[in-house]
């Protein structure tokens, strides 16, 4: 009786299997190989894109690569003496402002959402949803916000570095919050419980246990956000980083430029020398970004811990 039922079950399973998957035929093996080859081709195309871009920039812009393009300011008269000095300084200023804003705001929001917020309350859910949505708002819309709210309107800063900094900071804030939350979430609850059980207050627990453990992850998130802010041009076009500035920037007055915007500006000029200079600028920017990205990857691998 049992044997018959077992046999019935086995043959039923076998029939179901064969109907779903068929037997492994030669065609099936060939199909598998082809499928794997197609997948590999797709991945190779993605990787090839990077190789092609870097090679192209090196070949086309490499000839202009020298210290001069970093130390010389822009000149409309003599393209061969033109450089990115004011743009690089502008980017340094911008990013300094961005870091000063996103670290406290981003980490603070992440701590609140992970450690304090009651997820069942509607306002906390709204904050979460809102951050996820902000992460997908086009960068040019942040430029419009900067133009209407920061340059003019309520803040009225004018077309200055501070306005650009604030705009970029708001743009990358969601990225920082999401990364910092991931890092804080990966600290196991037992650590918190242990600390609280020993009489630490919630804030002492966060400051002395959770944050030190989450710092590498938070740092990685901040670094990647900074990398993104360095490369953003579109929102800066709207908040004044377009002038052909010959002087070094100042936070709250005068015009400013930024590296990607200057590259765009040189690219738009008719002389070939300026176009080559733009590609040399891309090379400089890619170098800086690769350095920043590899730092982030190194940090992640170095401090990744399984509790």
């Amino acid at each position, binding site marked *: 009786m049992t044997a018959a039922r077992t046999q019935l079950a086995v043959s039923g399973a076998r029939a179901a299997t064969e109907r779903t998957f068929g037997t492994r035929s030669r065609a099936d093996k060939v199909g598998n190989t082809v499928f794997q080859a197609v997948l590999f081709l797709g991945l190779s195309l993605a990787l090839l894109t*990077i190789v092609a871009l870097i090679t192209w920039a090196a070949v086309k812009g490499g000839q202009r690569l020298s210290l001069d393009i970093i130390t010389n300011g822009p000149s409309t008269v003599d393209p061969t003496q033109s450089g990115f000095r004011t743009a690089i300084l502008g980017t340094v200023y911008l990013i300094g402002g961005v870091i000063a804003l996103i670290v406290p705001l981003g980490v603070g929001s992440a701590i609140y959402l992970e450690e304090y917020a009651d997820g069942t309350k509607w306002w906390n859910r709204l904050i979460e949803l809102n951050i996820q949505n902000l992460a997908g708002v086009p960068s040019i*819309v942040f430029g419009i916000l900067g133009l209407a709210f920061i340059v003019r309107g309520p803040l009225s800063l004018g077309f200055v570095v501070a306005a650009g900094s604030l705009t970029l900071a708001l743009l990358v804030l969601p990225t920082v919050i999401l990364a910092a939350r991931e890092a804080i979430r990966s600290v196991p609850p037992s650590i918190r419980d242990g600390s609280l059980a020993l009489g630490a207050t919630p804030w002492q627990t966060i400051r002395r246990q959770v944050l030190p453990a989450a710092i590498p992850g938070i740092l990685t998130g901040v670094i990647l956000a900074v990398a993104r802010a360095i490369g953003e*041009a579109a929102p800066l076009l*709207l908040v004044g980083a377009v002038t052909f500035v010959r002087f070094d920037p100042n936070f709250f007055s005068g015009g400013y430029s930024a590296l990607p*915007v200057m590259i765009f500006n040189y690219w738009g000029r008719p002389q070939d020398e300026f176009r080559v200079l733009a590609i040399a600028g891309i090379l400089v920017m890619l170098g800086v970004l690769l350095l920043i990205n590899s730092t982030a990857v190194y940090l992640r691998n170095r401090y990744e811990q399984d509790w």
Partner: protein
Amino acid sequence: MSMSHIAASSVGVDPGPRRSLEAASPRHGEKLIKIILGMCATVSVLVTTAIVVSLLVPSVNLFREVSIREFLTGTQWAPAFANPTFGVLPIVVGTLMVVVFAMVVAVPIGLASAIYLSEYASRRVRKLVKPVLEVLEGIPTVAFGIFAFSLLTPTFQDLLPGMSWRGPFSIGVAGITVGLLIVPLVASVSDDAMRAVPADLRQGAYALGASRMKVAVRVVIPAAISGIVAAFVLAVSRAIGETMVVVIVAGAGDPTLSFDPFQGAQTMTAYIAGRATGDIAAGTIVYDTIFAVGALLFIMTFAMNMLAIRLVRRFREAYE
């Protein structure tokens, strides 16, 4: 004096007063910290509010002069002409052209990369490839645009000489470039979705004699489908919002309604970028069009993002 106290003091041990688990002090500092952190978190809500307000006010101004119907259905877009027209369709079509071409490139390449990484790649390959894809994601779009303009466009013009090329600009190439740009986004979101599919589903299929390809195509992809669709939706949202590549590769030329991928065209983002860098006085009707187009852009991407968030949630509820 209870019995136990008498007993305890008689042997010289002081048990002390009974302590409750309440905090000894009211801890105002702790409450203050929570309030400060909560304020940090509300900044992001304020940002969204500010975006909506800054887009809405000038848009309302514009729609006093131009009816919304004319704006959304008109096929002529020339707000700065002496005889202005405000039909937004030409630049919406430009944007959609970019989206279509971008998806044709990004979906197959991104999905193939994701399946390979999640189902076929060894740990070592993953550890190598993932950072490289991150680098691709981090390449500034200005660089991508100039790269495409000086390398991809001439290549395509050589490969397809008989087409209606006119000058160096092409909306189709712009779309393809944006597609290459969003491959990492599609790959990483779908890869996460597929890796979240429980291993026992795969094991079960293998136990029934399925091959690797069958497991990927018939088990893993259907199980991760909502996450994968979310990746596509996010990619569409990114393609709608891309600015620099489109400005450089498609030119911010004359916005006529056209479906020809080989010629230059204008998109919504390119219009905003081009118009805002020109010197136009605030408060004029042309200045207001920047915000009206921005509002349309925001509404489109907002709808996409919400859809993607819902899909990811549904996926998480099923498997986590």
